[in-house]
């Protein structure tokens, strides 16, 4: 009969206490691990979602807002870029790819993005396949054809051949003005990329502009009814440059030098700002850092409390264990063997607790990732990380070491004193 078996039997004999201790260790590990996994996963997910977009060019204003409404389809869009400005960017010989990006309407809260088919050629890296790929149907070819993101298809039930009517504004509201004159026909559905772009409805720029021209007609009529002087003819004439503009331009220069030169040129000018999403995200991460730090501290505190519980449980058990130790000594167990049995008990508790906590930590992180994916379309990839395994290993070692105190107490147990207790 091995010492391990004796340790196991002793634990089984105190199974309620053992299970509670294992549970506390597991919860401590799971919470800490889930926080660590999620914080690094969310960062990776956000960075990955921004990769295909290249340099963003939008009107002057908040760079974070530009990143949020272009990449995350969140927040209100900045003012439009002048069409001439966009054309000059697209025609710049240093640019290898320019993709227009315009926001304005929504369907059931999902933003409608005016863009060109070149949007679907965007790649995270030149060697990568296109980031946006069709799951079914085809790309849009004419106005009022729409390609919808995977989440839009999933939540609205739209499929190729279906039609829908957009509503004005970037968010859903109770009294929305619907563009019933120009229903969109779904022609394609994109494969899910577990990114905010899954929540987009992509139409060509013509659709976007025509929709808004009609919107202006509508607004003109309403104004006329109210006695204002502006009428349909005026609005037709006032299809200003801005109305044919874009919210942002996604620019991929030919070389790194071109990228940096253009970045500086654009930001020096008065018309627009150029933003590297990575840079803006790094700033956002810095802001999030203090919150993340607090969460980490919470995790470590939970872990510390779990450690104290283990010490308390093991130490409490030594009082009960004294008689067992005395019996073991009387039937021939040496002090070293008794010490080993108690250390094995704490090692087993920590091993099982850490293994359960490790699995639960990943499970919790996956659940929370699912929640983030479901509600924010931010994919937080949860991957095995050796660093976290070593953290769990250290915790297991520390917990086992915590068993030294009761083990030494068992080691010093006066055998004769406890043998006659009944």
């Amino acid at each position, binding site marked *: *009969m*091995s010492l391990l078996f*004796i340790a196991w*039997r*002793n634990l*089984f*004999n105190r199974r309620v206490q053992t299970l509670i201790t294992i549970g506390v260790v597991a919860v401590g590990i799971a919470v800490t691990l889930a926080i660590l996994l999620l914080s690094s996963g969310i960062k990776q997910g956000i960075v990955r979602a921004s990769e295909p977009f290249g340099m963003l060019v939008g009107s002057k204003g908040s760079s974070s807002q530009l990143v949020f409404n272009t990449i995350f389809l969140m927040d209100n869009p900045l003012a439009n870029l002048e069409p001439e400005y966009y054309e000059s960017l697209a025609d710049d010989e240093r640019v290898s790819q320019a993709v227009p990006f315009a926001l304005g309407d929504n369907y059931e809260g999902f933003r409608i993005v005016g863009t060109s088919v070149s949007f679907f050629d965007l790649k995270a890296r030149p060697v990568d396949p296109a980031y946006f790929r069709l799951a079914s149907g085809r790309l849009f070819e004419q106005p009022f054809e729409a390609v919808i993101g995977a989440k839009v298809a999933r939540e609205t039930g739209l499929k190729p051949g279906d039609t829908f009517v957009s509503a004005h504004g970037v968010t859903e509201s109770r009294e929305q003005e619907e563009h019933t004159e120009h229903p969109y026909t779904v022609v394609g559905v994109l494969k899910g990329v577990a990114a905010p772009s899954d929540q987009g409805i992509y139409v060509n720029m013509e659709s976007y502009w025509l929709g808004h021209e009609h919107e202006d007609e509508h607004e003109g009529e309403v104004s006329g009814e109210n006695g204002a002087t502006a009428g349909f003819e005026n609005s037709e004439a006032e299809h200003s440059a801005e109305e044919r503009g874009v919210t942002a331009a996604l620019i991929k220069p030919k070389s790194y030098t071109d990228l940096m030169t253009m970045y500086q040129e654009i930001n020096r000018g008065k018309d627009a700002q150029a933003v590297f999403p990575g840079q803006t995200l790094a700033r956002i991460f810095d802001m999030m850092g203090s919150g993340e730090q607090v969460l980490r501290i919470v995790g470590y505190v939970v872990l510390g409390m779990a450690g104290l519980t283990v010490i308390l449980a093991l130490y409490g058990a030594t009082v009960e264990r004294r*008689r*067992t130790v*005395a*019996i*073991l*000594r*009387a*039937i*021939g*167990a*040496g*002090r*070293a*063997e008794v010490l080993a049995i108690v250390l094995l008990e704490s090692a087993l508790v920590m091993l099982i607790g850490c293994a359960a906590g490790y699995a639960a930590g990943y499970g919790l992180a996956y659940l929370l990732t699912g929640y983030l994916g479901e509600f924010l379309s931010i994919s937080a990839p949860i991957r095995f990380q050796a660093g976290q395994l070593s953290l769990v290993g250290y915790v297991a070692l520390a917990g086992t070491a915590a068993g030294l105190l009761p083990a030494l107490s068992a080691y010093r147990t006066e*055998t*004769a004193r406890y*043998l*006659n*207790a*009944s």
Partner: protein
Amino acid sequence: MLVLEEVSKTYPMKGGSAVPVVSVSRFAMAAGEQAALVGPSGSGKSTLLHLISGVLRPTSGSIQLLGRELGSLSEAELDRFRAKHIGYVFQSFNLLPGFSAAENVMAAMGFGRTIPARERKERAHMLLGRVGLGHRLNHRSHQLSQGEQQRVSIARALANRPALVLADEPTASLDGANAQIVYALLAEACESEGAALLLSTHDMELAKRTGRVVPIRELAAREEDDRVAAVHRLAQPV
């Protein structure tokens, strides 16, 4: 086989005084002999058994078992020596909680290491069968009656084929009928295994059945006391 000479055990008290608990001028047992230490409660019977088993160290004197001076052994050596050569039966049974009858016997074999691992299970079953528990091998201690628990304790004491079995009030927790059965099993099992038996009891009838009654008070080292002669007589190997 067992020789005690000028053995004493005292416990220090505050103020520098010491309380004598055990005092033995000379005591000896031959291999396979059976004897009973008798005396009232608190007379030091259990302490003397602990001294012989090496669980306690004497304050002075010499204890030799199988020719080995126990005082010369390190604590680890003494643990190993006890595991191999001494079996212990307690008044309160002292079975390992949560362990089955067979596991209790095998645990002792694990520490003794005299029985090859592959033979341990078979031997545990044989010993438990010998004390009439062949049908209770896998029952845990709390599932056994007091008499059955003491029988497991007897089987465990004999697990490593010890030279000496120490039994501290082995029948004190049992009713009359059970006490008779358990003593008979203990004596018979020790005889079959070739182990000497030294038991402590305050039951004179039981003590007489061993064939040698040793009143603990008469072991005290008092040269002027004429009981010394009796002690020496008792200490001669049979």
